[in-house]
């Protein structure tokens, strides 16, 4: 009898679980779920402004998707985004691996680790729009970088960084690298510190070199974290917006080579092209959905171990 009563009590308490979940779900449904549904709904309508005239909304089925995916525009912007992401990601993961390995290598016993970690993580917290503005000012034709380069005699007249596709893209890649390599270092390091140190000791006793230990022990064990970093970085990369938007004043110049997918979405949103914006949003939703499903699977398969 007594057991049954306390059991009922627990059930009564457990109802509080639902009550405590109310704020989250009410907010989520209003500000994320309903917007998601209406975004999907809108993607099937023709609905935009042409000059002063409002076109639509007319139901046009999947025509927005056909137009979006059939035009070279979106693929060009997707390629732009991926190029700038990869250009930032490769140096980022290489440097992060190296630094994380050094930080967690017990035989190196590096001093001042806290200082270095603090410094390399800092750019991650900087306001991306202010950081872009800063880079735009620093690399401007009459900016300090050109002044310094001319002073030390590397160039005789200002180099117009923002007039060439390559130099503009490299600047974006470089900024992405700077903002994220510290973060990745810390993530990888957490993974490396989790490796059983007896493995290293055994390898050293067997006469393995530092590079053998790195490639034969550290790397294979790090693989899951590595994939996690790769995919979360890719999801983040697809959302690239602040830096190229502000560097190019939203135009993506030179020759639209800095325009990212989200910048295109931003153009649709500001020009109130609801139908095409909706189709693009759904496209991005599906792509990031697939990518996060991979991360999600990885996390849950780790749980089962």
């Amino acid at each position, binding site marked *: 009898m007594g057991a049954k009563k306390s059991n009922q009590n627990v059930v009564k308490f457990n109802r509080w*679980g639902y009550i*405590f979940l109310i704020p989250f779900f009410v907010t989520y449904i209003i500000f994320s779920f309903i917007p998601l549904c209406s975004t999907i709904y809108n993607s099937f309508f023709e609905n935009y402004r042409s000059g002063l005239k409002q076109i639509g909304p007319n139901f046009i089925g999947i025509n927005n998707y056909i137009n979006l995916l059939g035009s070279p525009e979106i693929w060009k912007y997707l390629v732009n985004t991926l190029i700038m992401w990869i250009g930032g990601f490769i140096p980022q993961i290489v440097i992060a691996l190296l630094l994380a390995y050094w930080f967690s290598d017990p035989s190196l016993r590096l001093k001042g680790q806290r200082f270095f970690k603090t410094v390399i993580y*800092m750019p991650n917290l900087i306001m991306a729009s202010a950081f872009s*503005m800063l880079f735009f000012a620093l690399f401007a034709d009459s900016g300090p970088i050109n002044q310094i380069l001319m002073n030390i005699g590397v160039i005789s007249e200002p180099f117009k960084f923002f007039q060439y596709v390559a130099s503009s893209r490299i600047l974006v890649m470089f900024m992405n690298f700077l903002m994220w390599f510290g973060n990745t270092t810390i993530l990888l390091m957490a993974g490396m510190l989790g490796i059983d140190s007896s493995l290293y000791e055994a390898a050293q006793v067997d006469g393995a*070199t530092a590079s053998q230990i790195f490639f034969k022990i550290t790397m294979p064990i790090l693989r899951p974290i590595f994939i996690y970093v790769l995919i979360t970085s890719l999801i983040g990369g697809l959302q690239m917006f602040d830096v190229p938007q502000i560097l190019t004043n939203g135009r993506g110049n030179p020759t639209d080579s800095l325009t990212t997918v989200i910048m295109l979405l931003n153009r649709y949103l500001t020009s109130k092209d609801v139908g095409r914006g909706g189709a693009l949003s759904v496209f991005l939703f599906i792509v990031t959905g697939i990518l996060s499903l991979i991360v999600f699977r990885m996390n849950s398969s780790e749980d089962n171990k």
Partner: protein
Amino acid sequence: MNNDTQARTHGVPVGVRRTIAYIVLIFFSVLCLIWFYILLINSTRSHAEMTRGFTLLPSTNLVNNWISLINGTIPIARGFINSIIVSVCTAVLTTYFSAMTAYAINTYRFKGRTAIATFILAIMMIPGQVTALGFLQLINRMGLDDSIIPLIIPAIASPVTYFYLKQYMESNLPLSLVEAARIDGSGEFRTFNTIILPLIKPAISVQMIFAFVGSWNNYFTPALILHTDTKKTLPVLIAQLRGADWLRFDMGQVYIMIAASIFPVIVIYLILSKYIVGGVSAGAVKG
């Protein structure tokens, strides 16, 4: 010692590797800091001084630049206040309600608990941009366009903060404590507010900093919602600098404005870096 001799016989000596490590680390530290150094120097110099070339030493026009920025056409002081209101409210709402959500999933064994936990995990990675279109329409229909409210209220539902706090509770919150509070006659809501929240304070503070910084730096949504200059937050005002006629600007003002929006976060970060750097790995990597 033993380690050192081992390494020396089988590859590059440890002393050499250590030196290389220090050189590379110093190089990347300089690479991270140099931009902020130039920014700091240039915010102390007048426009005329800057056209003459770059110097390594600061000048004396910091206050002048600041005064001309405050008296300029950009409502920077207003932007500061707006940014602080939005970021502080976001940080408080996000952490409080995420803790509540995490507490619900962590403590109670109700029907559908695992399904709900899985659902929140699944929506964690969905970027806000993909719902921005519907969000803007909703905001318009609610009459909240050009207001900072839609930048604050949605922060109540933050899957990432929830996830971190749930992880923390799983390993740091004994359920026996909740039982004890019940026996003492404490209501569930009171238990959460007066016993649980103080217990998870370390995790709450870390997440508060992240939420604050994230909101402080946010540009995409505010740029779409805020239209009146006096309602804009700092990132939107900064972007406006780029939009206007660049060459007509007093560069002293530009630099001091960038500095003013960057350095508050740097100062907070330097004071609290110990917790922040620890929080990055604890939250993001699922052990």
